[in-house]
């Protein structure tokens, strides 16, 4: 197995894995989506809401805010000693108080004040509701860990996808250097270099095969490797993207161990 990180920036990681099959790639993808825990607001106490937005809709909007997750300090409610009743080991309280004076005011996710400095909205720029003059909002919200299996708001990823590694081949004998492919390729894979057709950044190829259609002499073939995958993991901001991948591998390992223990006893 060979893993290479191609690109890593803020909340996104692109990496290439060689020597795995589709089943494993898909198991990983599904694990990242549904089994890696992340924090989200799950219960909201509305003390005062004179805005035009219904309490329920406001609560829903609060639930969808991605929170920076600290997996070390919090337990999943079902694994917690309090048996899911809610204690400081499995719950974090956030409060929101905002009043508009004589002007309109927009309430942002950044207005939430967390009891735990480590658990905060990943961005403070999400608008929640607009308050007209003399309207007020006092809210207490309880965040907890959960998994994407229960509700998509607990997903730590906004995108997790994989694709086959493309192989772009040009038959130099057939190529007439008409440059039709250079024009048509949306990813600018083809270049004319010193009078011959060359390829660049072939990993970007989306396999749309427009070049194959355009190429009159039929010099271009697009294929793919079947044991290598390009992963793209985009975090919601809850966890670092590489932490999501590592956690997914750990979670998958744990599940395999449980079934192995069970089968061992048969």
């Amino acid at each position, binding site marked *: *197995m*060979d893993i290479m990180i191609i690109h890593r920036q803020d909340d996104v990681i692109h990496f290439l*894995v060689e020597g795995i099959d589709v089943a494993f790639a898909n198991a990983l993808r*599904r694990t990242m989506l549904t089994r890696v825990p992340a924090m989200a607001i799950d219960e909201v106490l509305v003390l005062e809401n004179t805005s035009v937005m219904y309490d329920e809709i406001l609560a829903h909007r609060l639930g969808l805010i991605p929170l920076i997750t600290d997996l070390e300090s919090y337990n999943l409610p079902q694994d917690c000693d309090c048996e899911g009743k809610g204690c400081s080991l499995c719950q974090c309280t956030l409060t929101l108080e905002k009043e508009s004076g004589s002007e309109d005011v927009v309430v942002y996710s950044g207005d939430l004040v967390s009891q735990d400095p480590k658990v905060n909205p990943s961005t403070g720029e999400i608008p929640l509701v607009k308050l007209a003059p003399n309207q007020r909002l006092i809210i207490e919200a309880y965040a907890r860990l959960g998994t994407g299996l229960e509700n998509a708001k607990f997903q730590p990823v906004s995108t997790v996808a994989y694709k086959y590694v493309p192989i772009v081949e040009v038959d130099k004998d057939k190529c007439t250097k008409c440059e039709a492919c250079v024009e048509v390729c949306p990813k600018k894979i083809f270049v004319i270099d010193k009078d011959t057709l060359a390829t660049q950044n072939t990993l970007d190829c989306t396999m749309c095969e427009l070049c194959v259609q355009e190429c009159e002499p039929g010099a271009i073939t697009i294929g793919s490797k079947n044991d290598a995958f390009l992963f793209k993991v985009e975090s919601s901001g809850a966890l670092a993207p590489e932490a999501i991948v590592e956690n997914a591998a750990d979670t998958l390992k744990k599940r395999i161990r449980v079934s192995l223990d069970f089968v061992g006893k048969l």
Partner: protein
Amino acid sequence: MKPRVIEQERYELKIEFQEEDHGFCNLLRKTLLEEPAVEFAGYNIDHPLLASPIVTVRTKKSSKRQAKVVLREALEKMLARTEEFRKDVNQAVSDYSVD
């Protein structure tokens, strides 16, 4: 993950993996099929809303290989691969931050 035996015979095994999904079951099925002694391996999810897939594995009688042994070996293989992946990811991440 809550496994439960549905049917057990020497050469055939049916296990229900409660709370599991395609991710795990398809991986298990593919890994089982790598073993030449396996005659049939598959899984069934009765309804898309239910999370209780039933994995079936049947080995060839001529191979004299017990289904439970083959299943255990497949799971061990999966565990080893996942561990390798975990290790390689760690390595790749630390290599990348050095660059």
